[in-house]
């Protein structure tokens, strides 16, 4: 599959209640690589195997949650085309100048029907993964520091207007629907309460759950190289007394192996691996609401109360 439009989730700005505490957490426990701090005091990180300058940006704020999510697109032409398509769909956009985020080009921003500020950009400085571009080693010290995820993988967002969100992503932005959860007692093909959307061959690059309050964050997910590394992550969470929500377990939805836990501001994060590969011609998988417990936690079959009630 040639990817010519939206490439990947590229950055996410997270609000934290104590920037120094959070900086230590993301650097030393999650094991992200700190790449900079800007004049506003925002702290920039990347996962070790990412090549772009930053992916997770922390901003000190008086409330937790997500400020915005940005996806990298192929080039400036793709950026212009996507901007036009979004406008023609009836959503207004704004341009944020290059350099507002460190080492990042101009961004096209608009608000999703779910209430989340969402962006596209075509340029972010490649700083590499530290292994070099010529005859590289397979890994280095950063691959073992802390939990050491390889990438910012996706996020799950809670907000209203799920149908409009699905329409925007699948009909305008070039994503495809991979899995869905039906509302209680809905027939197959009926109203969804949750959707998993891909712009790649991952099971999801972004996911949404229908929720009354707009703009909420359920979790930020980090890609792990193996299930063994998920267990190692669980050990590190225990050693550091990090509050764990669910896992280690397997999601029925996407089949990924997972842990949900919380950062020091109460933002949920996930360590994730082992999902299947998805393609745009695949028929979406459907889960009925009464089986959502297995969709969430396949070994326990339990719909953990926190899944639907705890978010930032």
């Amino acid at each position, binding site marked *: 599959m040639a990817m010519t439009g939206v490439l990947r989730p590229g950055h996410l700005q997270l609000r934290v*209640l104590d920037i120094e505490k959070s900086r230590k957490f993301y650097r030393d426990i999650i094991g992200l690589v700190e790449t900079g701090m800007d004049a506003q005091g925002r702290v920039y990180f990347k996962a070790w195997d990412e090549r772009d300058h930053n992916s997770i940006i922390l901003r000190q704020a008086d409330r937790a949650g997500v400020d915005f999510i940005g996806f990298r697109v192929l080039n400036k032409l793709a950026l212009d085309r996507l901007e036009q398509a979004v406008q023609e769909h009836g959503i207004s956009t704004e341009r944020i100048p290059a350099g507002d985020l460190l080492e990042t080009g101009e961004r096209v921003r608009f608000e999703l029907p779910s209430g989340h500020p969402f962006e596209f950009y075509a340029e972010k400085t490649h700083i590499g993964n530290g292994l070099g571009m010529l005859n590289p080693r397979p890994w280095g010290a950063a691959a073992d520091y802390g939990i050491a995820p390889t990438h910012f993988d996706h996020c799950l967002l809670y907000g209203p207007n799920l149908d409009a969100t699905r329409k925007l992503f699948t009909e305008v932005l070039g994503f495809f629907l991979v899995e869905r959860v039906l509302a209680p007692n809905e027939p197959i093909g009926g109203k969804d309460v949750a959707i998993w959307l891909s712009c790649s061959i991952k099971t999801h690059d972004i996911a949404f759950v229908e929720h009354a309050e707009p703009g909420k964050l359920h979790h930020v997910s980090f890609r792990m190289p193996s299930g063994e590394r998920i267990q190692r992550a669980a050990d590190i969470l225990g050693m550091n007394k990090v*509050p764990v929500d669910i896992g280690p377990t397997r999601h029925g939805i996407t089949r990924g192996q997972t842990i949900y836990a919380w950062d020091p501001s109460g933002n*949920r994060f996930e360590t994730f691996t082992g999902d299947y590969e998805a393609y745009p011609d695949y028929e979406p998988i459907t889960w009925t609401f009464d089986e959502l417990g297995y969709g969430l936690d396949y070994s326990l079959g339990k719909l953990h109360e926190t899944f639907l009630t705890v978010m*930032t």
Partner: protein
Amino acid sequence: MTEVDGAHTVMILDTGESCVCKGNESVLHALVRARKRIPTGCRGGGCGVCKVEVVAGSYSKRAMSRAHVSETEEAERRVLACCIYPTADLQLRIIGKLQRAVCRPKQAGA
């Protein structure tokens, strides 16, 4: 009550129950230790699930989300249990989402 160094008693007025909060643990941590069935949220001051009103006693606190606790509320001692640390014996009421779980009668055999 100071059987453990720095420990204080936390009384839940809704039920009349008390538990001991050790010197370095949050009130929510102590409530969880004393009553296993209590639902907890993020434990980081972000989700607002564990809101309480402190009626008597003093505590130190850390930052909690303004999305769930306004400045006025914080001044009036309506705070998140995961973000407060007793410096004296406390009496509190459960408000917000924890109330149902704390105040419902224990089921037989539970």
